[in-house]
């Protein structure tokens, strides 16, 4: 136990398995795990089992026999593939989407990285094909659900509010493909670097559509910020982020593969061109855990 003392994150692991961490602590822990810490990973497995011991203290009980057939005949549990609800590539069709896609690709600040990643190569290719990027703040989406958007917007930070004001001033007509079940998550700073970054990731788990907005993105020279998704302990790069002159970027992903498995979005600071490995090599600077 004492060997863990040099990991202040270990206490966070306990809170994490109970889903009791505040967003800052959760970001810090996920960043720490993403950077690779075998002891904390081991503790995660161990303490996750410990929750079974807590839950197991409940008195035994069984549901009615009728529940089994009720569950197994639930229309949401159909005979087709378990991931059917996440099926398809989530891309919309039609000329609007195509035009948007072309327009986006013409000035894509998200650069595909050199060289295919081992393992995730095929997934990466699909992802990058599906990904298109709108250069910061020339375009911006409003979610169709304006009320929800406003509630989310209030929660995000000042810079993003300014962006919206700027866009309103330009009377830019919002145009956005909305997937039902879109939620926005703050990208919380992990404290690993001293920079006033901020951002938010809006994500529809069923379709894999996502928009990631970032501000104050000013990498030191010779370095780049890189966007990631985490599926449990496995990171996948979504590419290097290029910000505009104001340090802002808006990244749109039409259909991230295996979206239902995504547990977090993250940003790391990498050597120019992105991490040379399949995982972040530099500090993970922001994390947005995706709750299920």
């Amino acid at each position, binding site marked *: 136990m004492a060997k863990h003392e040099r990991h202040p994150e270990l206490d966070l692991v306990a809170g994490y398995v109970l889903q009791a961490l505040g967003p800052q602590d959760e970001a810090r822990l996920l960043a720490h795990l993403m950077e690779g810490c075998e002891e904390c990973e081991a503790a995660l497995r161990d303490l996750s*089992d410990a929750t*079974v011991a807590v*839950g197991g203290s409940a008195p035994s009980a069984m*549901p009615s026999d009728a529940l089994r057939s009720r569950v197994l005949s639930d229309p949401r549990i159909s005979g087709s593939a378990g991931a059917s609800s*996440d099926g398809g590539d989530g891309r919309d069709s039609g000329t609007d989407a195509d035009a948007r896609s072309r327009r986006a690709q013409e000035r894509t600040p998200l650069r595909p990285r050199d060289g295919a990643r081992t393992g995730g190569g095929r997934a990466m290719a699909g992802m990058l094909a599906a990904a298109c990027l709108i250069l910061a703040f020339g375009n911006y989406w409003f979610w169709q659900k304006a009320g929800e958007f406003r509630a989310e917007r209030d929660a995000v930070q000042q810079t993003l509010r300014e962006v919206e004001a700027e866009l309103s001033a330009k009377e830019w007509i919002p145009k956005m493909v909305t997937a039902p079940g879109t939620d926005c998550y703050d990208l919380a700073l992990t404290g690993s670097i001293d920079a006033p970054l901020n951002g938010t990731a809006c994500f529809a788990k069923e379709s894999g559509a996502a928009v990631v907005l970032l501000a104050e993105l000013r990498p030191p020279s010779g370095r780049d910020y890189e966007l990631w998704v985490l599926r*449990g302990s496995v990171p996948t790069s979504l590419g290097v982020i290029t910000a505009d002159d104001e340090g802002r970027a808006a990244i749109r992903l039409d259909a991230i593969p295996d979206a239902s498995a995504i547990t977090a979005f993250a940003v790391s600071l990498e050597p120019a061109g992105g991490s040379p490995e399949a995982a972040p090599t530099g500090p993970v600077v922001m994390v947005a855990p995706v709750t299920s």
Partner: protein
Amino acid sequence: MAPGSCEGALMNAPDRAAADIRSLESVANGDREALAFLYDRFTPLLFPVALRITGSSADAEDVMQEVWVQVWRRASSFDAARGSVPAWLMTITRSRALDHIRSRSARTKREEVAEPPKQSAPDPGRSAESESVRAKLRAAFEELGPERAQVLELAYWEGLSQSEIAERTGSPLGTVKSWTRQGLERMRKLLPDGDWW
């Protein structure tokens, strides 16, 4: 395919854990039999958690239905590197049950249930074993001491965040964090290997 029950009875704990992972992979590939297998295998473990949190067997059954729909949809997100299948299923159950009482709390207050409402009869041999482990875990929980037990109680059964717990108990946040960890570590030691439920 879900492993058959005969095969299941002969397996040791690591084999069982591996079989659980395979079943979950089958579920991710759309195998409903595998889902039924997991339902049968884990309902005795999961239902008590849903019942304890919701306090009503009708609500707990609704929760369990949502749990299995989520398992069906999200089986691919299970990550064996981060914990066991039972732990993953129990986490989903607890989350859905806490969601349920949160959405319900505006309408009705939680009723404490002294004894669980009518249920189907569990296998007497199994339930005796299960009840003895459960009693041991309950005793262990009490032995954590009032502070650690309270912190775990509020976090696990009531779904409070660590800062809410700090506020509720008047303890510093750092203390809440270490009590949580110490409490969990002690509970972990008492968890038997294999299927005790």
